[in-house]
């Protein structure tokens, strides 16, 4: 019997997952705290209590994410790219291109059938095309970021945002709101802008199928369907587990190997 854990400390959310004999028995996702150590601990403890285990029961734990080097209880650390690759392949064995949109970055990873990374691209310099863009926009619309996708589906005539830059797009959205444009049309425009921006990155790496999306934004159907249109390729939905957990799952799989 093997019991391992993976901990993914991101900029906005932190995730922990516990695998028993390669099956998810518990997982937790929390809003990240000021210090990576606090975030990791909270997520980990929540996952442990979810399956009534103690820290001592975990045979090996791997940390990943931007705060990975500041987690005291992990046995090893592995890069986010490797963990996402491994996690995504486990979630969907046919996947060869992973689009991961995180809270403050965006990664496009090409892998082979063994989850070995062939090529990758990241954007963590510009807020546009990352979860942060959607967060800023949701704030202006005074809704939760998770509501953006559903709202988009009600839209009849989506607006077009003129600017890529989050700051300029913000001003644009406020202007549309003041002009009385319905929120659903604005939400649809926001999601389309997001999809456009990410698609540029995806195209430049020449995606191979199957393509999947991980990270929180993967749950936003509005972004997903526009991206499919732009890329002219299907983005397969992950159904085995929450796509936001891919990094943590990958970390746990590495823990299994390192045991």
């Amino acid at each position: 019997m093997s019991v391992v854990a993976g901990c993914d400390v991101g900029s906005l959310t932190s995730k922990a997952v516990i695998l028993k004999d390669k099956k998810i028995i518990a997982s937790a996702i929390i809003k990240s705290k000021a210090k990576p150590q606090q975030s990791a601990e909270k997520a980990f403890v929540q996952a442990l209590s979810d399956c009534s285990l103690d820290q001592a029961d975990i045979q090996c734990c791997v940390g990943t994410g931007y705060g990975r080097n500041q987690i005291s209880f992990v046995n090893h650390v592995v890069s986010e790219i490797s963990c996402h690759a491994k996690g995504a392949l486990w979630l969907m064995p046919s996947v060869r291109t992973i689009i991961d949109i995180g809270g403050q970055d965006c990664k496009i990873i090409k892998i082979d059938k063994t989850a070995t990374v062939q090529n990758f691209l990241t954007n963590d310099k510009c807020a546009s095309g990352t979860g942060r863009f959607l967060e800023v926009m949701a704030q202006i619309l005074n809704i939760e970021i998770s509501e953006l996708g559903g709202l988009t589906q009600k839209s009849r005539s989506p607006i077009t945002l003129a600017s890529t830059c989050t700051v300029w797009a913000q001003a644009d959205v406020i202007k549309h709101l003041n002009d009385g444009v319905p929120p659903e049309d604005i939400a649809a425009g926001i999601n389309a802008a997001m999809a456009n921006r990410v698609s540029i990155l995806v195209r430049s790496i020449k995606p191979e199928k199957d393509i999947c999306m991980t990270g929180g934004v993967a749950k936003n159907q509005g972004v997903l369907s526009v991206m499919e249109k732009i890329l002219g390729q299907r983005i397969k939905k992950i159904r085995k587990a929450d796509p936001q957990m891919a990094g943590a799952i990958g970390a746990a799989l590495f823990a299994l190997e390192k045991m």
Partner: protein
Amino acid sequence: MRVAGCDIGSLTAKVVILKDQEIESKTVQRCVSTPEKSAESVMDHAITQAGIKLADIDYIVGTGYGQKKIPFANHTESEITCHAQGVFALLPKVRTIVDIGGQDAKVVRINDRGVVSRYVYNDKCASGTGRFLEIMADALEISIEDMGTYHDQAKEKLHISNQCVIFAESEVISLINEGKETPDIVCGLHIALANRAASLAKSIGVEPKVAFTGGVAKNSGVFKALERSLKTLLEEYPIDPQISGAYGAAVLASRHIQ
């Protein structure tokens, strides 16, 4: 002879009236709902200040992002041309102009006749424009006009690592929470902005002498930081650097009459 230049920018509208080549009146106003209204309002103010009527002005050149909508302009000229002409008329030895406005930044190279040889423009990304400072001043809860003074009080050198305005804003908030002093943060922000402008300038080459114009040039902290980034002294601009484009438009108007 009386001429005027009218520069309708994205944030502010400017008018300069020249009487026999000398500035008779100048006005800077925040833009209102439409470019037409901004132009009318700023011109009204400028002529009232000069104690004249619109009909007393022989020729008006319009420029800036709203140039096509200025109802009283006799013709329009590009911002780049106007900025070049404005600087060249006042400082004929200048070969490179760095202009940072509220929503854009540009670098213009001119030759010894004031003709534009190269230019580069950023209006796609808020970083490197005046908006960067506006957002940071808000986060620091200080007035943008005071940033120059804060700059001079800095003691510790702080490095702002994020270029993106959105990410840099979070970085500034973290620095505030860590207990860093406002002057040190302000100085770090000025250096970041200056470095950004300098890399734009370096992309087309910097030939001395260099002038710094646009609303941001009024900030003495950015002025000093830009001198360090470019490793060259900047020329003292003899008029309000924010009206440089409108002044250039007025210079072009006067040439049109001669």
